[in-house]
């Protein structure tokens, strides 16, 4: 996947970091400058017609002042959760999915930022390991950015694998919609790294997931990382309930299993498209002609707009049933759904977040 950049901006103090040197060397054709006030550079620019979209083309390398590691921001007592930890190594994303929550979440600082001091994450991970030596943790880097977008020029994923594979109890997850996996193929993860892909049918990819790799390319990339020793996961999230969605998701699962055996999959997550009203307004304003944003969504008890319940749960069950029929024994879980929905889909009480987290980290 190739992304266009308008400029590269480097915060003074990190211009000699390994990350800055790599990015600048790999982007000779892009204007590059050093700045003193990075906060001003990441803000939306008033003269941009689409400040969020323009921010995606402004590559800012800076130093992160806040901790890198945090509990998954989607976690809530309302939901049956998976004990996920997220590492914020970057913010915003060069791809442009019409439903992306970043359109609301980073609307006030839309530049594409990468943090040059990312090796400091290891100190935070060590503290987590020391605090609960008997637990296993899954740490994802794809919360505020795609884990592998630009990895061919940043090389961050390879560095992280090198750092994490020496540690027990931690599995790092690269969550992506790209096929930028070449950096990962150069290193043996020794069981400590996994790559996961959002799985969407071609109709959703074409309509909503701009500048991402095609579903087939994602599956092909998954095959290659499995062969290189990585574990893989798949996120059927967001499931989008459009006309013929059941048929398309069913075909997609068939296509996946043509290349990847169920026994080679560490886990599957399932979740429906959910948007706050503010996100929906932002998304509709930027993507007014995307019908995928206009499903039969209604206000849910958590205040988000979701596909009306019988249809949404029927879709979850269709995916879960399809996986089960294929003989899949991998753990599957629902993201940002209640315990009662979990019970309706899987017929069992959901495990605790800590239990599920450990299972997913070691699956």
């Amino acid at each position, binding site marked *: 996947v190739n992304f266009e950049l308008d400029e590269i901006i480097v915060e003074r103090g990190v211009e000699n970091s390994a990350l800055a040197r790599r990015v600048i060397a790999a982007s000779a054709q892009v204007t590059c400058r050093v700045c003193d006030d990075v906060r001003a550079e990441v803000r939306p620019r008033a003269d941009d017609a689409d400040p969020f979209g323009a921010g995606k083309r402004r590559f800012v390398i800076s130093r992160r002042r806040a901790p890198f590691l945090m509990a998954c921001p989607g976690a809530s007592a309302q939901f049956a959760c998976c004990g996920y930890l997220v590492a914020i190594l970057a913010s915003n994303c060069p791809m442009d999915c019409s439903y992306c929550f970043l359109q609301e979440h980073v609307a006030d600082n839309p530049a594409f930022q990468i943090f040059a001091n990312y090796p400091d994450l290891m100190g935070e991970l060590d503290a987590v390991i020391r605090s609960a030596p008997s637990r296993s943790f899954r740490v994802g880097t794809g919360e505020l950015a795609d884990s592998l977008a630009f990895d061919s020029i940043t090389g961050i994923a390879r560095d992280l694998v090198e750092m994490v594979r020496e540690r027990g109890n931690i599995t790092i997850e690269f969550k992506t919609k790209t096929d930028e996996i070449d950096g990962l193929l150069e290193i043996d993860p020794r069981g400590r790294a996994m790559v996961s892909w959002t799985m969407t049918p071609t109709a959703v990819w074409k309509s909503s997931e701009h500048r991402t790799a095609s579903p087939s390319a994602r599956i092909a990339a998954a095959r290659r990382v499995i062969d290189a020793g990585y574990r893989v996961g798949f996120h059927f999230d967001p499931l989008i309930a459009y006309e013929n969605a059941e048929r398309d998701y069913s075909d997609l699962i068939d296509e996946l299993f043509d290349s990847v055996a169920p026994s080679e999959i560490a886990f599957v997550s399932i979740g429906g498209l959910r948007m706050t009203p503010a996100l929906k307004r932002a998304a509709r304003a930027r993507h007014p002609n995307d019908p995928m944003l206009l499903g*039969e969504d*209604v206000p849910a008890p958590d205040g988000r707009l*979701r596909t009306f*319940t019988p*249809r949404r749960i029927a879709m*979850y069950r269709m995916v879960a049933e399809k996986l089960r029929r294929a003989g899949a024994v991998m753990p599957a879980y629902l993201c940002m759904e209640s315990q009662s*929905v979990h019970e309706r*889909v899987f017929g069992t009480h959901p495990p605790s977040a800590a239990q599920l987290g450990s299972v997913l980290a070691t699956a």
Partner: protein
Amino acid sequence: VVSELGDGRRRVTVDDKIRALATRRRVPDSHLADWMAMEPVSREAFFNLADDLGFRTAQLIRALELIREIAVRRSVAPASIATSDELARIARVAGSRPERARRALDALESMRYPMLHAELDALRRDIWALKLGGNVRVGLPRMLGSDEVTVSISARSGREMARAIERLADSAAALAEIADRVGGGKS
């Protein structure tokens, strides 16, 4: 498009009429902008619909949102929704203007949420068929936004209460099926 009459006076265009209606109805600027962003045929068709039916402010705003969304869902121009047979039929039927406006809005909601409305209609029909009596109410979640079905009984005597509970007990299996349907099927 501004056109001049021969004597120098300005012709009143559809856009002028739209702006006047928006002012009269206090339509928010953002919605007026959405309206004016439609291609001319569609904005005129929606004006005619709104004018015919005498939409109140909230109705006008909701109808505009629905028509735009239905058009994207169906990949058609908003004009084809505003001039659809179904809406034309409602605009022609006897009855008060407010009643016709309400029915037109209901029709638009059904076009926008076809599966939801079909599911709600089927559930209501099946609940009604249970003949649970006037003092037993089966509450479906608003717009089927959750999986929680409620049953409430109002009774003014022990006898009324006992009868209502008896009727509920007789319908237990059917009510359980309704609760399962709201939750996407039997687990």
